[in-house]
């Protein structure tokens, strides 16, 4: 079903995604504080809600400095790419029945393509900065995101097989009787892990790893260009949480409450889980990260696909 007012949906989604990303910065700091027996930002406005706004005003007034040794145009492009790819992915996310910007029949592939393009932002940022730490961060980002991209796609193929469609609306509708997390639990776990690696969140924030690489690929960025990476990361978390909700937890499906409310309840649950991961887990070594990706996750994803395909072929065809 195509939304009757795609332009309105588009504006609502754009503003909504950016607002939620801003709110997430606050929510993350409050939740981390809660789990570390602190309070977090609670002074600016009620419960500290205006903290992000204050930070944003501050970022806007910071000097927007481009290093003289940097590759200027690539340096400027990189933060734009991360925002662009992440926001483009929201085009295919079905929030509620009829509330979708574009009901693509290859929505899952589109999402995967956009998240692959997102790699460019970090690599180009690391390259254009002409700084050894930034370059190391960019290289790590490239290796990590490409490796985890591989089984991210494969882990989704189970749900695609069960639903018989690449269309996210069809996938949500196919979960009317049972969420795909039940038959595809392994796929869910793999997609979750790949999603953390894709958004470069802790415990997989090796491209940034501030304890070794200053700030990794965005070491040289300041002002609102840094802000774009920052917000891009949070919209990325929102996107991955949305995709988990849509692909494995029935999207808008749920009793009594309207669809959009169920979508938000589920999405915010996973956002909270992402933050809990950051609060609880240390960062692995880079070789550990790579060997998990290739030697453990990829075979598991292949086995999951094989078994799902076999069961589907044997019982449901």
């Amino acid at each position: 079903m195509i939304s009757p007012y795609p332009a309105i949906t588009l504006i609502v989604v754009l503003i909504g995604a950016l607002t939620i990303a801003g709110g997430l910065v606050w929510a993350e700091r409050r939740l981390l504080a809660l789990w570390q027996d602190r309070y977090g930002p609670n002074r600016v406005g009620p419960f500290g809600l205006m903290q992000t706004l204050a930070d944003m005003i501050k970022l806007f007034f910071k000097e927007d400095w481009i290093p003289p040794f940097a590759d200027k145009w690539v340096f400027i492009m990189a933060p734009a790419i991360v925002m662009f790819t992440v926001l483009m992915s929201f085009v295919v996310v079905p929030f509620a029945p009829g509330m979708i910007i574009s009901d693509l029949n290859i929505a899952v592939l589109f999402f995967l393509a956009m998240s692959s393009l997102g790699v460019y932002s970090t690599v180009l940022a690391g390259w254009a900065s002409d700084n050894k730490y930034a370059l190391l961060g960019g290289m790590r980002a490239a290796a990590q995101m490409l490796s985890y991209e591989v089984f991210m796609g494969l882990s989704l193929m189970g749900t695609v097989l069960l639903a018989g469609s690449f269309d996210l609306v069809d996938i949500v509708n196919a979960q009317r009787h049972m969420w795909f997390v039940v038959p595809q639990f392994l796929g869910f776990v793999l997609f979750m892990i790949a999603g953390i690696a894709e958004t470069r969140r802790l415990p997989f924030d090796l491209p940034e790893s501030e304890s070794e690489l200053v700030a990794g690929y965005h070491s040289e960025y300041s002002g609102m260009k840094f802000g774009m990476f920052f917000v891009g990361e949070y919209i990325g978390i929102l996107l991955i949480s949305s995709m988990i909700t849509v692909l494995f937890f029935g999207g808008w499906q749920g009793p009594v409450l309207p669809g959009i409310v169920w979508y938000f309840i589920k999405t915010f649950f996973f956002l909270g889980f992402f933050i809990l991961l950051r609060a609880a887990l240390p960062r692995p070594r880079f070789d550990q990260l790579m060997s998990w990706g290739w030697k453990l996750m990829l075979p598991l994803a292949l086995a999951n696909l094989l078994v799902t395909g076999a069961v589907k072929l044997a019982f449901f065809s």
Partner: protein
Amino acid sequence: MLSIIRALWDVFLHAFRKRVTIQYPEQKAYLAARYRGRIILSRDPEGEERCVACYLCAVACPVDCIALQATEDPTGRRYPEFFRINFSRCIFCGYCEEACPTYAIQLTPDVEMGEYNRQNMVYEKEHLLIDGPGKYPDYNFWRVAGVKIGGKDKGEAEREAPPTDLRSLLP
């Protein structure tokens, strides 16, 4: 793998713990009586300045934030003509208090000394002097020291015998 889930659960349980933060401006942290905060100059039980301007605090100060000038009153009692502490230099190490032979200079449990103007961090004697004896209520240097000042001759101090009259020892 199990340890990761265990770690997640343990961290999650911290949501129900008491928070350790002290909400500062509304809620004050407990500072012990011996806390090393704002420096004061105390008075003896008779209400006179304890400081005898011996300069030991200024010498002991590792950042040279204490400046003073000694002088004497007509009765021979030493006191500082001016006494100045630059708190923008002070590191609150408490060495001045340790060096002080008369318990005059003391550190107090007060840390709220923020100023917008740096010059306001320089405290003069009238800002430093308090009305009471501070941590040592009964101590009075001049009443135990064998020094002659106005109103107290040699040998009249507490636990002190009158000086021997040297002439009485002559053969």
